[in-house]
Each structure stands twice: as C-alpha cells, then as structure tokens.
C-alpha cells in the first residue's frame, strides 16, 4: 500500500469500458438500463457523463463497482477493464479489494450516504482497516491528514462528530475525504453537487479539480447539468435511454455539438445573459399592485406549552430550536404587469416570503397590500374573496395534484369556489388545457397519466382558472429535466404577456431568473441584499453576496464565451 501521490500519467487508459450492457428487471419500462456503452478514462483525466433522469448514467456508474441491486439489475454483456483487469467478471473478494482501494465513489446525498449512528472518523477509518494493516494511531493520523487535505475545519472535532452535526457542504467534503483516503486510481462521483447550494457547489467543484490535479486521480463525473460539465470536464459523454449518443472533447461538444439530442440539451440551458427587451414596455410608470412593508416572519419561537418547565430547568426543552428569522424586515413594491425574480439559496427565506404573500403562512409583523387590500392578519375566511387576486404554481409536479381527482375537476374547482357554475367552469377548464398546450380531453384523465412537465402545465392551468392578477411561481421548474424546463418557462412567459399578469418568480437558479424576469431581488438570511433590473445587476452586481452568487454559477464563462463569439449553440 504505497500512499505516495503518483502523478505519473500512464500510457493506456485507467478504465476501459467496452460494450457494457446492464439488464433491468421485467417490470421496468425498458429491457436494458445501459446498452453497449464504451468509454475510456485516462489517468488524471475528468470524464463527464451527462444525461437526463432515466438515461442510465447512474446505473452505468454503479455497474463499474458492481454496486447494482443484483440479480434484478445486472451486467449482461461487456467488459470493465481497470488497468487491464476485467471487473465485470471478477469474484467478490477481488471486487472488495478494488472498492475503496483502487476505485472510490462519491454519492449525491451525503446525508443518506453516511451511517447516521457512526462517527465520521470511524466511517473513514473502516476503509483503512479493511484495506491496510496499519495500527490505530497511524490510521487516525491518515484520516485527520485527509480531512486537512479537503479543508475541513477542525479535523480533530470532525473525527468524533456524527453526520447530522455537520453542514451539507461539510458532509460532501467528508465524502470526498472518504474517497481520497487511499489514493485510488479512479474516483466516481455521482451528481456530487446536485443537493448543494450554488456557492457550495462552486467550492466543491474547485476542490475536486484541485485535488485531482494534485493526486493525478482519474475522475468519472456523473451530472445532468451542462454548466457543471463546462466547469470541470476534459471529455464528455452524453447518454440517452441507456446509450451514449455523443462522446468527445469537452470544448468540442459544448461549443459544436453534433448530435441533435446534445444540441437540444445545450439549447435548453437558459442563458445567463438577460434577454433584451424582455418585458417590452417600461413598467416604471405603472402603479404597484403588491406593496410589502417591513414584513417579518420568525420560525421556531415556541414560548407556549412547557415554558414554566424550561424556565425552571433551562436547556431541557424538548424539540426547541433556535428562532429563525426567515423573513426579516422586507420592503418591496411590485408593479402591475412586471415579472420579479426572488433569488436566494436554501434558507434565504424566499419560499417563506412567497407563502406569506399567498396566505399559507401568517406573517408576524409588517404589512402586505395586494391591490390596496391589507392581507397581514387576515383570517382564512377573510382571505377568501382575495383568492382570485393571487395564485401559486408549486414546485413538485408529483405532489401538487391530488392523485384521486380528475384533471378537469382540479382545474375547475377554483372557479366553482369563486361562484362559477360547474358546467361553465368545466368548459373553461378545457379551454385552459388547450392554452397550456394539452388536449382538452385531458380533463377526464387523472394526474398519474401525465409526465412531470405536463403536470406542471396542469398546475399552471389551475392557477389561471380564477383569473388572478398576481402569479407566484415557487421554483416551478426545479423538479423538471432540463429539456422540459425551458418549455415550461417559455409557457409561463407567454401566458404572462398574454394576460398582463404580474409574476413573482421564486428560484435558486440565476439562469432561470434571467430568462423570465426583468427585475431581480436577491435574498440572503431573510433580508433583501440587492434589488434592481436584471440586466443591470448581472452587468454590475453591487453587493458582495450577489457577486459571489453570480461567479458561482457553473459554466458561466462557457456561456459568456458562446455569446461573445456570437456563435450560439445550434446555429450552424
């Protein structure tokens, strides 16, 4: 077990996958998850495998280490050569030596990928215990050194900590440390940054790049995000329904994609450059339809109940959390007919703000006026007449439609509650279905018969059924595949113009914000740190945090370069 960094690049590839096929069980939607895939990765090289959900990219990654749920999902054909040795036919003992020793893996969700009941240090120590004959003290030294390598603060404390005691970014650093501890020849990273905020993602990506260069490890990086590809890849393979459709040099694929599918995927990535003349006329003269003044919302302040008890024995409260100031003294005017993006990372309070505006949460203090009507402090029944003013499009298309109600009933219900006759409401629902690009006869069907993008269209139709003035969209595309995202965004944009809607668009994705909104509000820890025209903020961000957010967007340089050379993707 030589632990010295080996930066020498060998001639042949580290990993050579040829004609790999993985079979799916009989009940799956297709016979093979991976079909005849051939890929090579050289030492010190980064290969990105890109694909949408269901493309088979994760199954392919797990097949290399034979981590598939056999026998239902198993390799049926092909070879996986690690430095000339075929892993597809290796025995269990040999595979155990390879796993963690020669090939390591990083998973998407570090919270579930770590054992919640075991200390971090012990979980990494296990690898050394299984692969080396080192003593306890030596192993501990190595683990702590690796923690320093991935720049975890206070390594000694982390060693004895449990997974739930760390932040998301720290947990992913732990996973990286776990993969690096034995200096493997290859690291497989399966969407390692998808669950992270954009600023953390940028840090993890640069850490991975740096460590890879320092240790000369090959990296197989699975992702759905072309921005990340542009950030990290040497070479790219694009997968679709189990097959590699395009494979080549990263620069080449990103700027001159050959396969129509690759081209469509790249085109679907919204541009970071705000669209020109996005809203047509200048809205500065219009009157504000939404006026928010000093709005406050605090979570976790549970003073009632056993307060006498906690006063008597401090620190004994059960389930008491620190109070979180989710929305902190927010002032905002939204003009009639404008589209405003509320941008922030998780915990910024953007969703709480939206929920306060639509009456799903009761604000603690401040004032919100919708077309002159105060809504803070309104009871549920006093809200009812205002329901036709403001509506919401929800995030998760699979949770936002009642599975036991027909699509027509889902859409018509709002109009019926507003006093419309059931027949009229139903025929209006059919018209709305056409409007959002679905067949009118979809009204008789049930939500489970539709795809994610189609369900989101139904959700939009439901919101429009009461003819609202304001539409609040809470991350409406974040649960969708890239190719579908753009269609839904374009639909929202065209509907807004057609009906003169005011739109408040909650998102974590600056690209999405730039695509549909002419105004941007940046939130951090419940406060507005910057607010202005999208184009101006993108060109000249004033606040430090906005600058950090903008520079963290993966693949930013790639897109700017594309625009700069005015040779946009797909325009050949």
């Amino acid at each position, binding site marked *: 077990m030589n632990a010295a960094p080996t930066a020498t690049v060998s001639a042949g590839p580290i990993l050579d996958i040829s004609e790999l096929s993985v079979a799916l069980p009989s*009940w799956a939607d297709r016979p093979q998850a991976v079909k005849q895939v051939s890929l090579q990765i050289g030492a010190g090289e980064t290969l990105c495998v890109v694909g949408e959900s269901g493309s088979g990219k994760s199954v392919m990654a797990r097949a290399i280490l034979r981590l598939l749920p056999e026998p239902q999902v198993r390799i049926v054909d092909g070879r996986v050569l690690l430095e000339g040795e075929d892993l597809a036919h290796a025995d269990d003992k040999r595979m155990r030596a390879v796993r963690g020793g020669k090939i390591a893996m990083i998973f998407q969700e570090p919270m579930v990928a770590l054992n919640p009941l075991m200390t971090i240090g012990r979980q990494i120590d296990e690898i050394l215990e299984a692969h080396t004959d080192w003593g306890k003290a030596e192993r501990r030294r190595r683990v702590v050194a690796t923690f320093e390598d991935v720049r975890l603060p206070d390594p000694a404390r982390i060693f004895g900590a449990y997974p739930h005691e760390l932040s998301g970014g720290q947990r992913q650093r732990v996973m990286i440390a776990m993969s690096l501890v034995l200096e493997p020849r290859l690291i497989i990273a399966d969407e390692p940054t998808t669950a992270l905020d954009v600023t953390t993602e940028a840090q993890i990506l640069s850490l991975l790049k740096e460590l890879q260069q320092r240790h000369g490890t090959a990296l197989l990086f699975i992702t759905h995000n072309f921005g990340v590809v542009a950030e990290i890849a040497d070479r790219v393979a694009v997968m679709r329904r189990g097959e590699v459709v395009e494979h080549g040099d990263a620069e080449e694929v990103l700027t001159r994609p050959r396969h129509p599918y690759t081209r469509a995927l790249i085109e679907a990535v919204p541009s970071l450059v705000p669209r020109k003349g996005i809203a047509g006329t200048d809205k500065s003269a219009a009157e504000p339809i939404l006026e928010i003044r000093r709005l406050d919302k605090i979570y976790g302040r549970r003073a009632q109940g056993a307060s006498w008890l906690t006063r008597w024995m401090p620190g004994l409260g059960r389930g008491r959390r620190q109070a979180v100031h989710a929305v902190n003294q927010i002032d905002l005017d939204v003009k009639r007919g404008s589209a405003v993006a509320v941008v922030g990372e998780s915990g910024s309070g953007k969703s709480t703000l939206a929920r306060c505006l639509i009456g799903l949460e009761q604000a603690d203090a401040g004032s919100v006026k919708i077309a002159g009507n105060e809504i803070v402090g309104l009871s549920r029944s006093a809200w009812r007449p205002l329901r036709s003013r403001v509506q919401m499009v929800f995030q998760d298309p699979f949770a936002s439609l*009642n599975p036991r*109600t027909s699509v027509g009933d889902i859409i018509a219900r709002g109009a019926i*509650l507003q006093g419309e006759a059931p027949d009229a409401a139903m025929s209006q629902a059919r018209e709305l279905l056409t409007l959002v690009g679905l067949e009118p006869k979809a009204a008789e069907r049930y939500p489970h018969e539709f795809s994610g993008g189609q369900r989101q269209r139904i959700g939009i139709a439901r919101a429009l059924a*009461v003819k609202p003035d304001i539409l609040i969209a809470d991350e409406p595309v974040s649960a969708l595949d890239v190719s579908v995202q753009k269609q839904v965004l374009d639909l929202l944009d065209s509907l807004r113009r057609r009906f003169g809607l005011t739109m408040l668009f909650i998102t974590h994705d600056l690209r999405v914000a730039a695509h549909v909104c002419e105004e941007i509000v940046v939130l951090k820890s419940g406060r507005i740190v910057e607010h202005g025209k999208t184009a101006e903020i993108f060109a000249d961000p004033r606040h430090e945090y906005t600058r950090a957010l903008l520079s963290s967007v993966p693949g930013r340089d790639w897109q700017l370069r594309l625009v700069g050379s005015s040779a946009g993707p797909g325009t050949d």
Partner: protein
Amino acid sequence: MTRPFWIRLVANPRAAFGLVWLGLVVLAALAAPLIAQADPFAITGSPFARPFGESGLGTDSLGRSVWSGLVFGARTTLLIAVIATLSAVAFGGLVGALAGFYGGRIDDLLMRLTEFFQTIPSFIFAILLVAMLSPSATSVVVAIATVSWPPIARVVRGEVLTLRSREFVQAAITLGERDAAILLRQILPNALSPLIVTGSLLVATAILTESALSFLGLGAPNLMSWGFMVGAGRSFLRDAWWLVAIPGVAILLTVLSINLVGEALNDALNPRLRTP
C-alpha cells in the same frame, strides 16, 4: 403492470386462504340458527361426548353442543369485534384528523391524550371498565373501543400531517377551499388506504381482547362466545381437552385470516412496496 386491485389481492395465496376462512365464519355466523341448534346453551346430549362422533364436534361438561357454541360464538365474537373497531376507528380517526389538520395546541393536547391511553396497561384498564360497568355486550364493546382507538389516531394524524403539507392541499387552501372540504375532498380519499389496513388489523386485536375478557368470565352473559368456551372447558383440560382446543383453533384461524387479509390489503393498496 398495474393489475386491478381485487386481482392483486386474490392472487396472493395467503390472502386467498384468509378470505375463504373469513367467508366461512361470516356465513356460519349469519346462518347460525339454520345450521345449528337454536340455543347454544341448551342441553342436547350426554356430557363429554368426543368430537367427530355422532354428535358433531362433541358436547361439553353439561352436554351442550360444541358445534352450536362455535357457530353462535362466531356471531358474538365478530359482532362485538366489528362494532368496537368501528367505534374506535370513528373516534380515533376524528382525534387524529383534528390533531393532524389543526396542529399546534390542539395537536399537543390530543396527542398527549393519545399517548396517555397508549401508556396505561390497556388490558387491565379494559378489565376495570367491564368490571365497573358490570359485564354486558355493551360494556365489552365500550371497553375494547376505549383501549383500541389510539393506534388509529396516530396513523390518521400521521397521514393527515404529511398530506396537509403536500402541495395539492396547499393549492386547495390557496383556492379558498373550506377546512371541511379540504379534509373530505383532498385528505380523506388519500388517507383511506392506511386507515382501512389499520382498521382491518384492529378487528383481529379486538377479537383477541374479546376472547381474553370472555375467558376471564367478563364477557357478555347469556351470549355464547369462543373465549367463554375455552374458559369453561379449562377445568376439564385433562379429560376433555378438545373443549379447549376446538374454540381456540377457531379464534386462531379467524385472527390469522384477518391478519393475512390485512397484510395483503396493505401490499395491494401500496403498490410501491411491491417491487422487491
């Protein structure tokens, strides 16, 4: 791939066995006066007749027909168990729905109450209730319902709580739907399957509780029941063991069948659990 619910249920051999046995028991209970001596307490022959002789399943120490007892016992046991379960489901469901839907202090209060009833030794409490109310069919029903509603309340609360935070319920709120309509139109249809499963398994527990109470002599007087038969046969275990064995097997098979059907219902109603 998604076969109709009933096919999925019957295709499971365990469930099929359970359904057949339950069907027989229900049929016997309904047709009791037609297929057996009208009065299970009537003396029909010499005492201690062995089973499978000339007198069907034999006779007990007083010469009463075991077959009659079984058939009329099925009536008593099923009726008491089903009524008690329905009351428990109604009460527990209401408590759980209110706690889960309104949250906050109402939830705290109702869940404290539920926890309390789960903590106290329920069978001893049931004994106390029947003893204090003096044994009768009604007091047995009341006692069983009183000790068996908490699991229902917990299940319903959990379901309502998750469903309430689901986006389609939030959407209904933003459309201005009233609370009662949200509970009935949005939440209840989606919470029905766990309720059915828990409820059906509760019938099995109720039968066991009813039998144990009757065995201790706390059952409804003047009504034949399986637990009572075991209790009465107990003193003659050495010489007439079948007096204990036969009604016990009836209880065992019935409870087993309900459990099997309940589990199959659970599998059939939660298709995501089927993929191995």
